């Protein structure tokens, strides 16, 4: 897959050399060549994380459609909604007359991309799972959409900060161990493939399910009790009902009240603000431990 993508990149580069003025040839994370006439002024975003990133790099006023849920920042609420991000309504999107539709890169979106491209709409798939995806996404968006001079600086600054946080981080295993719970029945935990797991390491803690390289997974309650995290971190804005349930008291963090509940929105997807959460997270973990 990656070698194929590499070949396509090379091809795209060759094409770009002979390309028309004003046309940028690029390959997105799904491997599709993108031919967007820059600057693109009508963008439909089918992912809340990309909507937020577009606003952050100064392209907010060019968004003409967003998803129904997760409108961040506040200004995004003024953008008309085109419905759901996954299996979206094609007609609503087309009615916004987009120059490009940006999507979160996931296999689930493959059919949507095919359908959009079949009716002649340019698409851009962007990976947004881990922290290092954020600056790369900012650069890709700026490159493809055009006329976003601030994006590179923001991306550089993010990477510099990420590097310095990483250098500061104590070696894994010495800090408190944490299980991040996204849902309780059946238990769904955040794995090492998620930016949340990275944030936890940067905050000096360790995700007991870091060995699962997926963003999230259903696990058995017994494996949580067995891995015995010092702290149980609840994300997704759910109420901590685990406190009141007999079976959850087998997890010593629950029995001892070492539970931390975090506001859903800022922890829902990676963004340029994500690194601001490191301090908050390490403070909160210290707080619940003392």
């Amino acid at each position, binding site marked *: 897959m990656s070698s194929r993508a590499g070949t396509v990149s090379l091809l795209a580069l060759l094409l770009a050399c002979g390309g028309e003025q004003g046309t940028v040839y690029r390959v997105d994370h799904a491997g599709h060549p993108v031919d967007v006439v820059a600057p693109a002024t009508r963008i439909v975003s089918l992912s809340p994380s990309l909507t937020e990133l577009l606003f952050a790099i100064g392209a907010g006023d060019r968004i003409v459609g967003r998803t129904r*849920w997760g409108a961040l920042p506040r200004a995004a609420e003024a953008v008309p909604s085109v419905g759901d991000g996954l299996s979206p309504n094609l007609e609503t999107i087309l009615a916004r007359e987009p120059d490009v539709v940006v999507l979160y890169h996931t296999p689930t979106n493959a059919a949507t991309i095919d359908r959009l491209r079949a009716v002649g709409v340019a698409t851009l798939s962007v990976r947004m799972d881990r922290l290092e995806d954020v600056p790369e996404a900012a650069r890709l968006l700026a490159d493809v959409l055009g006329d976003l001079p601030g994006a590179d600086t923001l991306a550089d600054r993010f990477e510099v900060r990420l590097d310095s946080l990483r250098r500061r981080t104590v070696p894994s295993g010495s800090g408190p161990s944490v299980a991040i719970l996204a849902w309780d*029945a059946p238990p769904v935990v955040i794995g090492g493939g998620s930016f949340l797991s990275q944030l936890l390491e940067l905050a000096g803690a360790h995700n007991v399910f870091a060995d699962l390289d997926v963003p999230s997974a259903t696990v*058995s309650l017994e494996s949580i009790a067995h891995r015995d995290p010092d702290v149980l971190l609840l994300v997704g804005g759910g109420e901590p009902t685990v406190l009141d349930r*007999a079976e959850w008291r087998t997890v010593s963090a629950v029995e001892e009240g070492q539970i931390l509940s975090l506001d859903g929105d800022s922890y829902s997807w990676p963004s340029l603000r994500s690194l601001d959460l490191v301090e908050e997270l390490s403070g909160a973990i210290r707080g619940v431990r003392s």
Partner: protein
Amino acid sequence: MTRWLLLFSTALGTIVVGVAVGPSGLDLRSVVGGVLGSAGEPTVTIVRDLRVPRVLLAFLVGGSLGVTGAALQALVRNPLADPYLLGLSGGAGLGAVTAIALGAASPWAVPLAALVGSLGAIALVYRLALIAGAGLDVRVLLLAGVVIGAFAASLMGAIMALVPAPEVRNALLWLLGSFSRASWPAVLLFAVYAAVPLVILYRLARPLDLLTLGEEPAGYLGANVARTRRTLYVMASLLTAVAVALSGIIGFVGLIVPHAARFTWSRLHQTLLPATFLLGGSLMVIADAVARTAFAPLELPVGVVTALIGVPVFVALIRKWAA
């Protein structure tokens, strides 16, 4: 007598295996120590408060689904009947999904909502079936069940289309079934509750035999067909409703176990029902053990495993049946 001994030891064996295996990979000595209370602290809690109640709940739910399936197959005289046929899964799913979509905050909110949804579906189906007379015409009962189930399922579909994506995913997980909620209070609750419908269904064993002969012969042979049918439907439904509330919708146990028991055991309900209970419980314990350990620490939905085990068995049964 030896056949019963075999069945009881199978049931006991699966329970022992269910307690012995788990995602934390404790060795047998630790598990025994955990049961006896002589092992270290996390081990005792894991074995006594997680594994044992989970295995017991799986056994009770599996057994109850088996008995319900056997009773309903006799009631509607259709080999394809299972505990969810008569609109119950739709009602339970609608209740659970509604609670999840509303962000239910109490630990018992989802099970209670599922129970309310099932009871609503049972009441509606029962009322509809009575329109054709007090005898619960089987054709009307089946149609009413399918129609109410479909209606509840489409309401559920509408809610799932309108709520944010993570809630939809969580609702889907619930619908696939899991014993992750198992705890001692849940086991005791289910055991106390299930005892009454199980005993009543067992006492209907003779009329159930007669019902399989058909409505008229059953009447001639002394069965009160109308009353038997009503009791049967209500008891089977109430039993399934609580199973669904505690563990979600787990398919195939209630469909294939009664058939397997009929082939290998007896067609007479007085022996068929207890055999179905023990076989259904055993199958569910094994399926849950596979769900917990096959890809540990990941857990498969137990409904997926029962189908993976159940479909090949069912295919083999159909081949044998048709031959």
